[in-house]
C-alpha cells in the first residue's frame, strides 16, 4: 500500500464552446495517468509545457477534481479535496499567490490558522523561527514582507509554509525553475536535506531533466497527458527506452557533453485533438504504420522499467489497443 495511489486519472476541460456555450471539444490535459509514491520516496515527473504535469500536481493535491479516476492518499480518497493534512503543494512562485501585506511569519503560519490551531504569540514565533531556520533563513526574516526577499528566499519561505503542515508528501511543481543556477543548487540541496531529515515523500515536477534525475529515485516522463516511460531515474536518463525520452535526453544542453543526434522535428500536437494511435508517432523517428493506428500498451520492459511504445526495447508480445498510461 503506497502513500499515494493515483489510478487512471483523467482531467478533461471543456474547450471552444459553441453559440450555446456547449463545449465542442475537450482539452485532455491529463488522459489516463496512474502513479504511486511510497512513504519517503522521491518521484520525478518530467515533461515539456502543456504535457499535463502541473495539472496532475493540482489534481493530486486536490486543487482540481479529476474528470475520472481515483486519487488516494494514505488510503483515503482525496480527489477534489484541497487542504488534506499532510499533502502540500509548492510551486514556482508560491508567494505570488499570497497577500503581499502579510509578513513572512503570517505566511508561514497560515496552515495552522487554516486548521484552527491556536497558540500563544511567543510559541508561534518560536515555531516560525524554527521553520525559517530549517530552510536556511534567519529568524529576523519573519517580520519582513514578500517583496523584501530575493527569488531564492521567497522560495524558501514557500517551503517553510508547506513544512508547517508537516507534510508526508510534498508536491514540488517547478520550484527551482525560476532561480539562478547558483541559487538553484542551494534550494535543491535544501530540499534533499529536508527530505532526509523529515522522511517525507516528494513528487518533483519539472521540465528540467537533469534536476529531476538529480533529486529523484524514480521518474516518470509525460507526453500529451500520459506517462510514456517510468523507471529508476538513473536508468531512464542513461538508457531511455521511449524515443521521446531519448530525444529529451539528447536535447538537454549540458556543458562538456557532446550534442546528441538531430533535434526532434515539430512540436507536441494539441491536447484538443491528440492524434490516433501513439500520440507521439507524428514526431517519432522510429514510428511504423502500427503506431499511427494502435495505442501502445503500458508494459514492463524489464523489472521496474515501464514504457508505452510498440518499438522500444524488448518487443511487445501481445499488442492490445489499451490506452497508454494505464495499468
Amino acid at each position, binding site marked *: 500500500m503506497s502513500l499515494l495511489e493515483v489510478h487512471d486519472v483523467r482531467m478533461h476541460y471543456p474547450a471552444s464552446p459553441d453559440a450555446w456555450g456547449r463545449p465542442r471539444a475537450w482539452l485532455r490535459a491529463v488522459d489516463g495517468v496512474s502513479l504511486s509514491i511510497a512513504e519517503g520516496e522521491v518521484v520525478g515527473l518530467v515533461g*515539456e509545457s502543456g504535457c499535463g504535469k502541473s495539472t496532475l500536481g493540482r489534481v493530486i493535491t486536490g486543487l482540481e477534481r479529476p474528470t475520472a479516476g481515483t486519487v488516494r492518499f494514505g488510503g483515503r480518497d482525496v480527489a477534489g479535496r484541497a487542504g488534506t493534512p499532510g499533502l502540500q503543494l509548492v510551486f514556482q512562485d508560491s508567494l505570488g499567490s499570497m497577500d503581499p501585506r502579510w509578513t513572512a511569519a503570517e505566511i508561514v503560519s497560515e496552515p495552522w490558522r487554516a486548521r484552527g490551531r491556536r497558540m500563544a504569540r511567543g510559541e508561534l514565533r518560536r515555531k516560525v523561527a524554527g521553520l525559517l531556520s530549517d530552510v536556511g533563513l534567519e529568524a529576523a526574516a519573519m517580520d519582513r514582507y514578500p517583496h523584501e526577499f530575493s527569488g531564492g528566499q521567497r522560495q524558501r519561505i514557500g517551503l517553510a509554509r508547506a513544512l508547517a503542515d508537516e507534510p508526508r508528501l510534498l508536491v514540488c511543481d517547478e520550484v527551482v525553475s525560476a532561480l*539562478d543556477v547558483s541559487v538553484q543548487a542551494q534550494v535543491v*540541496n535544501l530540499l534533499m536535506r529536508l527530505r532526509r531529515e523529515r522522511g517525507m515523500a516528494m513528487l518533483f515536477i519539472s521540465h528540467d531533466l537533469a534536476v529531476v534525475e538529480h533529486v529523484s529515485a524514480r521518474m516518470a516522463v509525460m507526453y500529451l497527458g500520459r506517462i510514456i516511460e517510468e523507471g529508476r531515474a538513473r536508468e531512464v536518463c542513461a538508457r531511455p527506452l521511449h524515443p521521446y525520452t531519448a530525444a529529451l535526453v539528447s536535447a538537454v544542453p549540458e*556543458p562538456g557533453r557532446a550534442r546528441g543526434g538531430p533535434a526532434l522535428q515539430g512540436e507536441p500536437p494539441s491536447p484538443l485533438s491528440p492524434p490516433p494511435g501513439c500520440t507521439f508517432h507524428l514526431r517519432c523517428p522510429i514510428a511504423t504504420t502500427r503506431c499511427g493506428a494502435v495505442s501502445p500498451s503500458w508494459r514492463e520492459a524489464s523489472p521496474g522499467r515501464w514504457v508505452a511504445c510498440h518499438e522500444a526495447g524488448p518487443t511487445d508480445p501481445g499488442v492490445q489497443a489499451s490506452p497508454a498510461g494505464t495499468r
Partner: protein
Amino acid sequence: MSMGGPLVEFEGFTLELRTEQGPLRVLDGVDLRIDEGEVLALVGESGSGKTLCAQSVTRLLGDDRARCTRGGVRLAGVDVFKADERALRRLRGATAGHVFQEPAAALNPVMRVGDQVLESLRLHRPTEATRAEVVRWLARVGIPAPEHRARQYPHELSGGLQQRVAIAIALAPRPRLLVADEPTTALDVTVQAQVLELLRELRREVGMAILLVTHNLGVAESIADRIAVLYAGQVVEEGSAASMLSNPSHPYTRALVAAIPRMGHARGELASVPGGVPAPGSWPGGCRFHPRCPVARPSCAMETPPWTAFAAGHGSRCPYPAGGDRA
C-alpha cells in the same frame, strides 16, 4: 569587413541607469570584442548586466534611461554612444538584428507575420522585396507550410514558431550581427534544440556574427566560439567555448559549472555558492565575488583584481586562478 577591426568592441564600457534614487551603475568597465562571423556567448545570472550589454550594442536604451559614463561601444566602426539617432537607425536592423526572449513581445499582434517579414525586408531595401522572398525566409527558418503561415497572426503560432518568425525578421535585412537575448529560454527543450540548430545553420550559411546572451552554460557551449562570464556588471572570465567550461579559472565560473546538476553524475550535494548575486547599487568593494568566494583572501575585500590573461584568448579577473585545484 572593410574596416578591418572587430565588428563589435566594448572598451571600458561603463553604463549608468537613471533611477528615482539617482544614477545607478549597472555595467562597470566591460571589455568585449566580436569579430565578423564570430559567436560570443555572454553568460551570467540575473542582475549581472548581460542584457544591458546586448541592448547597448545598438543603444536600445534611450538617453532618458541610460548614460555611458566611461569607455564606449563601437559597432561596425561607429561609436554608438556618440552617434546621432539617424546613424543609430541605420545600425539597428541593417547591421545588427535583435531577437529577444519573448518572441510574442517582439511581434506586432495585429499584423500578419508575412507582412512583418516584408516590412523588415523593405526597411533596408525599399524596392525589390517580394512576397516570394518572405515565403523563402519563413521556409529558411524552418516554418512548415510557409505560404499559409505568412497569412497568420502571431497568436496563431506556437512559441517555437513565433521565435522562428522573429529570427526571420531579424535576419531578413542580412545583418552582420545577430544579438540574441535568451532566444531559447522561453522554449521547451526539444524546441530549444531546434532553434539552436537553426542558429548554427544560419551562421554557417550567412556567415553572420552572433552575440548570444544566456544564463545556460550548456546552451552557450553548444553554439559559441568564445564565452564571457559576467558577474555584478563586470566580465570576470573569458575564453574559448571549447575549453573554458572544462577548465574554468575564476572561482565564480568554477562555482557556476559545479552547481549544474548533470545527468549520470553522482547524486548527493550540488556544489552551491552561498548568498545571491548582489544587485547593482550593493556591489561589495574589492573583488565583487569575494563575500561568496570559497578561496577569498583578506586582500580580495580591499583590492579590485586586475584582468589577468594566462593563455591565448583566456583570461580572468582573479589573481588566484584555479590554483592546483582544477575543476
